[in-house]
């Protein structure tokens, strides 16, 4: 319960999810996908959301972004973005939030990019879709950029004028949007951004496409960037490039990043804080160093022990016994108890709450009270 009450972090929290319960209706029955998610994201941090496939990490992100499929039903909970509940908001507010406050990048860029529209156009289209909303961020970005370029002086005056008047023709804004899109492509370190602007998705490699997707998300100046398994489909050398980019961007942009992944090594490399999910619950939240040095939840412990490391050779690899439960009929009580080596009587009857076992280290397990 204490996650929602929060301790000293209160003012820095941008996004807070509390008691989010959600079912998917299927022919086989209701899948209890999320079972009371408690989560908050601080300003400017990279939060890792880790778990195995089917644990509900992507669904949590989709719920935050308002992109849930038709068969999803939210049973309870709140998603508060800077204090405003997105689940109770009006349609227009949700549209604005999705357009400019929450952005999402997916695993497979080829599925989400439009194959018949040039990359750059897909970015400038976003800002052109709402001239009023994006006028300020676009001009500010261009002013920022022109201050470093030689030919920027004349442009500068014009831009400042537009910013003051708050008035720009559709055509002129289109031109600015193009420049803005190019500057976004440059921001994600795509080589030769002017040329990439007019290229089609099929002409780019996997890593470049993922960069383009990130540029598209950043163009909206989001407060929350949801990155769902963005490096999973990439090769290690390209994954390294994207992870490096994320780390560099973190200091340049104003957004908090939620990195969803199944790969604990990726988490260790880029995240500030980690939330571990299991079968629709957040089971542990802590700073990244704490999670790795002092995991509390038996699932987190098991997960860390089963990692195969490139720098340590073991005789026998450890694993967690059993497999992930079917969420149509999830186990009663703690959903991990059938696989848990420490389970006792209470675990199969009652569901443990997420409690603050140490300062800023939350765990949902009866072993800790």
């Amino acid at each position, binding site marked *: 319960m204490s996650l929602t009450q929060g301790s000293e972090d209160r003012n820095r929290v941008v996004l807070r999810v509390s008691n989010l319960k959600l079912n998917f209706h299927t022919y086989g029955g209701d899948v209890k996908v999320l079972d009371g998610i408690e989560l908050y994201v601080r300003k400017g941090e990279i939060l890792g959301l880790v778990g*195995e*496939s089917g644990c509900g990490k992507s669904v949590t992100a989709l719920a935050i972004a308002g992109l849930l499929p038709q068969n999803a039903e939210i049973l309870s909970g709140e998603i508060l973005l800077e204090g405003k509940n997105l689940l109770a908001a009006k349609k227009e507010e949700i549209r604005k939030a999705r357009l400019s406050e929450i952005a999402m990048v997916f695993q497979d860029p080829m599925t989400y990019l439009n194959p018949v529209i040039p990359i750059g156009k897909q970015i400038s289209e976003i800002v052109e879709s709402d001239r009023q909303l994006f006028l300020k961020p676009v001009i500010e970005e261009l002013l920022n950029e022109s201050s470093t370029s030689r030919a920027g002086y004349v442009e500068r005056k014009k831009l400042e004028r537009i910013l003051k008047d708050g008035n720009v023709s559709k055509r002129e804004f289109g031109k600015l949007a193009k420049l803005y899109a190019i500057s976004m492509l440059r921001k994600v370190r795509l080589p030769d951004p002017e040329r990439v602007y007019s290229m089609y998705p099929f002409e780019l*490699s*996997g*890593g*470049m496409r993922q960069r383009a997707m990130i540029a598209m998300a950043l163009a909206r100046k989001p407060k929350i960037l949801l990155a769902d398994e963005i490096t999973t489909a990439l*090769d*290690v*050398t*390209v*994954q*390294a*490039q994207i*992870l*490096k980019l994320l780390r560099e961007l973190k200091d340049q942009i104003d957004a908090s990043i939620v990195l969803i992944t*199944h*790969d*604990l*090594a*990726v*988490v*260790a*490399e880029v*995240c500030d804080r980690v939330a571990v999910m299991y079968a629709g619950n957040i089971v542990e939240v802590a700073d*990244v*160093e704490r999670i*790795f040095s002092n995991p509390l939840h038996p699932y987190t412990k*098991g*997960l*860390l022990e*089963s*990692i*195969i*490391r*490139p*720098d*340590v*050779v*073991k005789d*026998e*690899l*450890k*694993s*967690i016994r059993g*497999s*992930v439960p079917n969420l149509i009929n999830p186990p009663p009580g703690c959903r991990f108890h059938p696989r848990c080596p420490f389970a006792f009587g209470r675990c199969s009857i009652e569901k443990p709450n997420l409690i603050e076992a140490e300062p800023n280290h939350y765990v949902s397990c009866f072993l800790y009270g």
Partner: protein
Amino acid sequence: MVENLIEVKDLYKWFPIRSGLLGRVKNYVRAVDGVSFSIKTGETFGVVGESGCGKTTLGRTVIKLTEPTSGSIIYSGRDITKLKGRKMKEYKKKMQIVFQDPYASLDPRQTIGSAIMEPMFIHGLVRDRKEARSKAEFLLEQVGLNPDHFSRFPHEFSGGQRQRVAIARALSLNPEFIVLDEPTSSLDVSVQAQILNLLSSLRRKLNLTYMFISHNLAVIRQMCQRTAVMYLGRIVEIAETSRIFENPKHPYTVALLKSVPLPDPKKRKMLVSLEGDVPSPVNVPSGCRFRARCKYATELCADKAPELIEIEKDHWVECHYDIDFSREAKVNTITA
């Protein structure tokens, strides 16, 4: 017993690209482009590389699931490259494969029992159904599944369990050699370890030889005695796995090792080592194929393709230079 179970010499596999009305061959995808190596009896031989480097094609060609374009494959002393029909069938029995995706490699309409029995019937290993069934049940038990699951369908199993079925099917012909093509990369971390443990114990119990194909360096290190690193259709380095990790000699191997993230927030590093992407295997660069991404490349690298040479005993590298990476490679060389 022969020391080298498999010897591959100068193996090529080029896939033609046809286009136009007459289907003329316009160009080739040079998936495997001149590869030589040997696999010792009883070892796990790793093949590691990024997607599109030809590692899967190499695995399939070695057991002749695809015919090689040229080169030779010698299986325990006998050249099997040109064998066809009944003679090849004898060897196919000894060489099996486990594929990456257990959702695609099992027929959804066939019970798992029947999937395991089918190879035995094809090769006439059993007299009747009853014998086949008892053997299949034994195999299910051996891979850690309940023999009562014999008449179930693949959709009733999880990914890890399906992979166990695929392993049981590969074992049904009592093979000597199994190609494991990314056997755990579609599985979750907690299940991956179970399957790798199973594979290691089966190898010891049944005296199997593995060719283990993976893009995951951590898994390779855990499983393999010797490892070959592939880049764009060529093997650029072969050595004992510990050597590859502790004393890599090819700039590509070094870069690959440096880009692997470690599950330890205290050992964060500036990950990047390589810019750009793997070139297309259709338009292979002249000279050394890695030169466009290699920071040590010189004019010599553009002019002349390096050969795979033995720089130390059992350590083969395909590079013109002997570069000292001792400072660079440090990040990844901690052994427990």
